[in-house]
């Protein structure tokens, strides 16, 4: 008899029938769970690493290097996006099309491009620091033409929105992203930053499924300078014009400082390097790293020392005859000219060597040497540029009367441009020698070089020099420029002074009554014996003042109209 539903025997059978598959399923489940435990717990590390290697990309994105700004917040150099392009030679398709593309877009020669494309390698660098637009074009064309095997890495490259402005000061950065010269080298750590590390989870087709930052990195810190890009541009333009115009001019620089603070407003070197292919020789800020004999620009400083000591008066009369004997050595004026009796003021205006020899003789070796040291010569100024040199001022024990005599017109001593600029800035501000600086900060006094009264007297004499003397090409109506020019032959080791190796210079300030700017312009030639400051550096100072007025940076200090003062 068949048991009806709900009876104990039928239920027992049902349980029996279900028990077997249940047991099989349970065992199967147990096996699956066991395998899962093995894969996900016991062997977790191994399989996770394998999956990570297949699915994840670890990308190191270079940090964006800090921007360098001028004093007004105008960027002088910053990083712009770029590409580094490489090739996986094993994956290349359509190699001839790729060669054509590389020749067209990267400017490689056909032979060079073929060498790279047909190389037996897994990885070949094609180009680094490729412009963003060019990289995008290559990416687009490769995709359109079905070329495979190219690898694109995001990177940065330095860009100069103001052109090659102040490049010798800023310096450059190498392909590894580190500074090689100038401020880029000196402040490399600050500007560089730390790269960002990103992980990407990719699908089999390369599509990104997830992205997370392993290390957020840190962008490089910015740098703000005391330079004014407008004054810098005026100076660079003028130096470039001078080098193109003045026969034989090989190189030059212009320095503009605020004498009240020691801030360097412009430091232009010429010839200017090309920022894309910089010539290492043109990246040297030689106004800081090289010395020259200052010539007659030094007369104002020796005269200032004598005025400070009360040893001379502006209208005191000296003999301007040439030559003058120092020991047995005759010392001459330029072109051997004799001036007869002449006041100190006029002697400065006419740049009479023999008068300054007499002034230096009154000061004596001890005091002259002490003043030159006090003015910062023979010592580094501490400006924030690599490679600064101290200049050459021999120990006073080694000085002879002849050394004293020639030092009075800037021979036998070697100075850097920045030292000379700083000394004139001290005269301009009333006698306080300040550290010249490129990074903003409070003025840093280094000592006093002379009394405010002596400084004012010498400034008045130099205003006269520009109005009626050798400095007239620097005069700009309404701006009251004062200054002193100088021309000096250069000594070449083993050959002595060569007549066609000449340094010309003009150190100036304006308005001479209470200067707001000091300007120093220096040119050098190695091939023109008729290279004079009056036709090179002096007019350049005038052009720089005009250029600053053109851009509205300065306005006249005196009315320039016959209508006179108006109220």
């Amino acid at each position: 008899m068949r048991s009806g539903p709900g009876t104990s025997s039928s239920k027992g059978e049902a349980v029996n029938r279900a028990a077997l598959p249940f047991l099989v399923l349970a065992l199967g489940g147990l096996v699956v769970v066991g395998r899962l435990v093995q894969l996900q717990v016991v062997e977790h590390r191994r399989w996770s690493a394998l999956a990570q290697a297949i699915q994840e990309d670890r990308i190191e994105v270079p940090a964006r290097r800090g921007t360098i700004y001028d004093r007004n917040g105008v960027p002088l150099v910053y990083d712009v996006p770029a590409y580094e392009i490489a090739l996986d030679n094993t994956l290349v398709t359509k190699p001839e099309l790729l060669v054509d593309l590389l020749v067209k877009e990267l400017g490689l020669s056909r032979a060079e491009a073929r060498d790279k494309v047909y190389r037996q390698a897994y990885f070949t660098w094609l180009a680094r620091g490729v412009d963003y637009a060019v990289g995008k074009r290559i990416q687009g064309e490769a995709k359109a033409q079905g070329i495979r095997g190219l690898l694109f890495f995001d990177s940065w490259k330095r860009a100069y929105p103001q052109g090659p402005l102040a490049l010798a000061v800023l310096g450059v950065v190498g392909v590894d992203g580190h500074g090689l010269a100038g401020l880029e080298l000196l402040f490399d750590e600050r500007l560089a930053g730390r790269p960002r590390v990103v992980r990407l989870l990719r699908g089999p087709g390369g599509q990104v499924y997830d992205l997370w930052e392993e290390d957020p990195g840190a962008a490089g810190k910015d740098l703000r300078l005391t330079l004014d890009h407008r004054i810098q541009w005026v100076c660079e333009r003028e130096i470039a014009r001078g080098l193109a115009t003045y026969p034989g001019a090989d190189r030059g620089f212009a320095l503009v400082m605020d004498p009240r603070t020691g801030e360097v407003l412009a430091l232009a070197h010429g010839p200017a390097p090309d920022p894309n292919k910089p010539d290492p020789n043109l990246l040297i800020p030689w106004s800081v790293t090289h010395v020259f004999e200052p010539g007659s620009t030094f007369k104002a400083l020796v005269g200032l020392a004598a005025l400070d000591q009360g040893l001379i008066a502006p209208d005191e009369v000296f003999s301007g005859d040439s030559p003058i004997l120092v020991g047995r050595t005759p010392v001459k004026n330029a072109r051997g000219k004799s001036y007869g009796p002449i006041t100190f003021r006029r002697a400065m205006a006419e740049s009479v060597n023999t008068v300054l020899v007499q002034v230096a003789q009154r000061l004596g070796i001890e005091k002259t040497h002490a003043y030159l040291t006090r003015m910062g010569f023979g010592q580094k100024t501490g400006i924030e540029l690599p490679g600064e040199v101290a200049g050459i001022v021999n120990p006073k024990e080694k000085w002879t009367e002849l050394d004293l005599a020639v030092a009075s017109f800037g021979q036998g001593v070697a100075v850097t441009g920045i030292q000379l600029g700083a000394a004139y800035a001290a005269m301009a501000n009333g006698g306080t020698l300040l550290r010249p600086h490129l990074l903003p900060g409070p003025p840093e006094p280094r000592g006093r070089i002379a009394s405010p009264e002596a400084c004012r007297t010498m400034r008045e004499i130099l205003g006269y020099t520009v109005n009626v003397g050798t400095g007239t090409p620097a005069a700009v109506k309404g701006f009251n420029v004062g200054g002193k020019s100088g021309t000096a032959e250069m000594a070449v080791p083993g050959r002595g002074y060569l007549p066609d190796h000449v340094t010309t210079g003009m150190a100036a300030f304006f308005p001479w009554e209470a200067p707001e700017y000091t300007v120093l312009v220096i040119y050098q030639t190695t091939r023109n014996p008729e290279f004079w400051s009056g036709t090179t550096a002096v007019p350049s100072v005038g052009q720089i003042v005009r250029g600053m007025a053109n851009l509205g940076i300065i306005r006249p200090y005196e009315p320039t109209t016959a209508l006179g003062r108006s109220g």
Partner: protein
Amino acid sequence: MDRRGFSRGSLGWREAAAAIAAGVLLAGLVFLYLWLGTVLAGLRAERARLVLALEELERTRLELAYQVDRAYSLEELALRAGALGMVPFDEKRTRYLVLEGGGR
């Protein structure tokens, strides 16, 4: 006896119903988990795509900013002004008055 048997039988159905309900609930939860996981993965992929697109846009912006800065540099302005026939002021043809109060 029948009464006891019936009561045992109805208890079995209830258990079965409860097991089915628990199974359905579990399946629902698993489905919900998987569905949400899929949605989440999709959103993560979308987020990653947007982050990368944003970074590319930022790079494009920086490139364009450079081109604008370059176009407004003094060097470029001087070239364009020169092309338009403009020349720097000539002090021989320019006169200044110094006004009282420091104005010029």
